[in-house]
């Protein structure tokens, strides 16, 4: 077996399935970037594609591609680690493969319908077969049902594999998190005319996914990845994971209330939503401390440098994008002015990249490393400039977009909201202000920078390790449970 050839015989069954999920995830990542660029361009050239591919369609595809590629990345991630973690071959692989193809076909059909049909009359048929028209979860109802069915297969396979093998802390957290993830999706699968009740439950899906269950999933992948890449002891990562889960659910579940300030819901959500959402950055600080401390105790010696770099980017990106950017506008006293402005878009861009893209991309690198027979991906890697430039360009691009959108948001909050009083004239007054227009140009420049980083990432994933003949060192032997002092000798990676 060649050390550097792409060879699926290097993988276990679950990992082969994971590769399929990762491939579709990457394709959707590209779609996210393309539709994001188109939507960004329409801010600068409003006539561009007007009447054929309107802003609403581009934005819908930009957002939905983001959500689905990350979700597929998570599903692939769990299948990737399942067999090693449970110590048992993946159960239900045939069903798992079938579910993958069903999900992929459903996503393709939904994307085509969004692209070609785009919208429909105000009937139940539209919601069932064309577009539900609710931001982030526009997928028509038939697709919702398909997604739930596929998710049930995924859940069954995961739980059955852990049950027949061994239940680790990471396995338990992932399995319990999946119950919440799947269950919460049901909260978005009904129609009501009452927009207040509609948005109440809509946020159960959106917030409790990204600010609770997705964060926990990211935490579980981080825990597993630190063991795999650095050789951190299972005891340490599991304990940290439990702490993070306690803090994430402890703050994030009632932090949901920061979406209930202005939708008709009672005033007590000011206090509950404001208080608990203000605590949401705390688990993200814990993750930074944990990742940096573990890196230090292992003298930064990792067996997969690109994956390790993304994990560190995740720790800081999650704290900055989800934590700091979210905290800045979470109290009702400021949210009254920032709500529904580009502040939110700024937060969305930095958080989705910092918290989620950067935890899925390291899985791609770990997968490629294994596919090439555990090829060397450490110091002196041939062509190592590519992953560094890819990460750098994406990091600068997304941060740049977020800052440009934040400046636009500041300007809107002041001119449209505080001074202008939020009527239509005030909205357009803010949209035509030079600060806003300049911000949109900078957002576009930074969007293109991000896109260049993504192109480089794809190139790198295709060739990294191809010219290496060295084999990566084995993951550091796990230190004895419970008895190892925290500062035990670093791994010989």
């Amino acid at each position: 077996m060649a050390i550097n050839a792409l060879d699926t015989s290097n993988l276990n069954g679950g990992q082969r399935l994971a590769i399929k999920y990762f491939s579709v995830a990457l394709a959707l990542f590209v779609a996210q970037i393309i539709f994001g660029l188109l939507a960004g361009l329409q801010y600068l050239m409003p006539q561009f594609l007007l009447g054929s591919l309107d802003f609403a369609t581009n934005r819908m595809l930009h957002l939905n591609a983001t959500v689905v590629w990350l979700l597929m990345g998570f599903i692939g991630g769990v299948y990737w680690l399942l067999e090693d973690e449970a110590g048992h071959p993946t159960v239900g692989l045939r069903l798992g493969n079938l579910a993958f193809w069903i999900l992929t076909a459903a996503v393709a059909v939904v994307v085509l319908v969004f692209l070609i049909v785009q919208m429909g009359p105000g009937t139940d048929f539209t919601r069932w077969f064309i577009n539900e028209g609710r931001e982030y979860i526009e997928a028509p109802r038939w697709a919702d049902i398909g997604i739930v069915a596929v998710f049930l297969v995924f859940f069954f396979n995961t739980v059955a594999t852990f049950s027949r093998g061994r239940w680790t802390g990471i396995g338990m957290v992932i399995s319990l998190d999946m119950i919440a993830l799947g269950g919460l999706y049901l909260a978005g699968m009904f129609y009501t005319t009452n927009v207040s009740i509609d948005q109440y439950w809509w946020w159960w899906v959106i917030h409790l996914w990204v600010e609770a269950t997705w964060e926990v999933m990211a935490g579980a992948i981080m825990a597993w990845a630190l063991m795999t890449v650095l050789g951190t002891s299972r005891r340490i990562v599991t304990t940290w994971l439990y702490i993070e889960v306690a803090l994430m659910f402890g703050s994030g579940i009632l932090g949901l209330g920061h979406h209930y300030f202005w939708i008709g819901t009672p005033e007590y959500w000011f206090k509950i939503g404001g208080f608990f959402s203000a605590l949401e950055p705390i688990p993200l600080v814990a993750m930074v401390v944990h990742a940096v401390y573990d890196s230090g105790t292992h003298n930064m010696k990792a067996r997969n440098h690109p994956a390790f770099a993304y994990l560190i980017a995740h720790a800081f990106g999650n704290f900055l994008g989800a934590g700091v950017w979210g905290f800045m506008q979470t109290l009702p006293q400021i949210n009254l002015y920032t709500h529904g402005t580009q502040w939110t878009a700024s937060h969305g861009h930095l958080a989705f990249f910092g918290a989620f893209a950067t935890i899925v991309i390291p899985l791609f690198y770990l997968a490629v490393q294994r596919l090439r027979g555990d090829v060397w991906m450490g110091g002196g890697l041939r062509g190592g400039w590519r992953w560094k430039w890819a990460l750098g360009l994406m990091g600068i691009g997304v941060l740049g977009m977020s800052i440009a959108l934040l400046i636009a948001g500041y300007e809107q909050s002041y001119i449209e909201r505080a001074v202008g009083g939020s009527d239509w004239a005030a909205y357009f007054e803010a949209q035509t202000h030079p600060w806003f227009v300049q911000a949109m140009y900078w957002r576009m420049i930074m969007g293109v920078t991000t896109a260049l980083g993504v192109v480089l990432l794809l190139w790198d994933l295709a060739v990294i390790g191809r010219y290496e003949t060295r084999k990566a060192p084995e993951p550091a032997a796990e230190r004895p449970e419970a008895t190892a002092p925290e500062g035990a000798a670093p791994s010989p990676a």
Partner: protein
Amino acid sequence: MNETPWWASQRGWGHVAIWITVIMFAILLVLTYDSHAMIEAGTERVPGYTVINKRIDYVYDEERRRYRPEVGGEQLLFGKRYSAEEAEDLVTHGKKIVQGRNCMNCHTFLGHGAYYAPDLTKSWLDPAWGSPQSREMLMVQFLQNPEENARTYGTGRVMPDLGITREEARATVAYLKWMAAIDTNGFPHNFEPMTQGG
């Protein structure tokens, strides 16, 4: 010998994680039950659909130091007095049109959606429609033919023609009128509604 201090116990933190999750979720369920009762259509916060037969204002509450909607006397929509059932049907149709035409991916409703076009929470009261006499007609005309009736205020952004019929436009306007009556805790702040006289 286990040297792990009690505060770093893996098992202990596992229990903490489970209990915190259960307790927080239980509190959320109780609050959801309570909030639901307060935002059913027909409550003080979210008026019933027949509010489309009434005059709706947005006034500054000196005591709370924020704005709130005020429902006044009769101000019929399209010259018709809708029964409870008719009003609900019309508003329901309006909301389904708003969803089916993907309005939320350009506009915001109660501040949620996209930021490419104005927030529609109080669009019924927006001074841009001129006067209560011209409002309904202008809104319907605009929805039916947004490209020709566009006022882009210098942005060049035009709402695309979504093929909205007259009947659909009326239903959409009814939905927007009803939404303007929801008590949104003072959002949007500092909004000056159109002068409705009387």
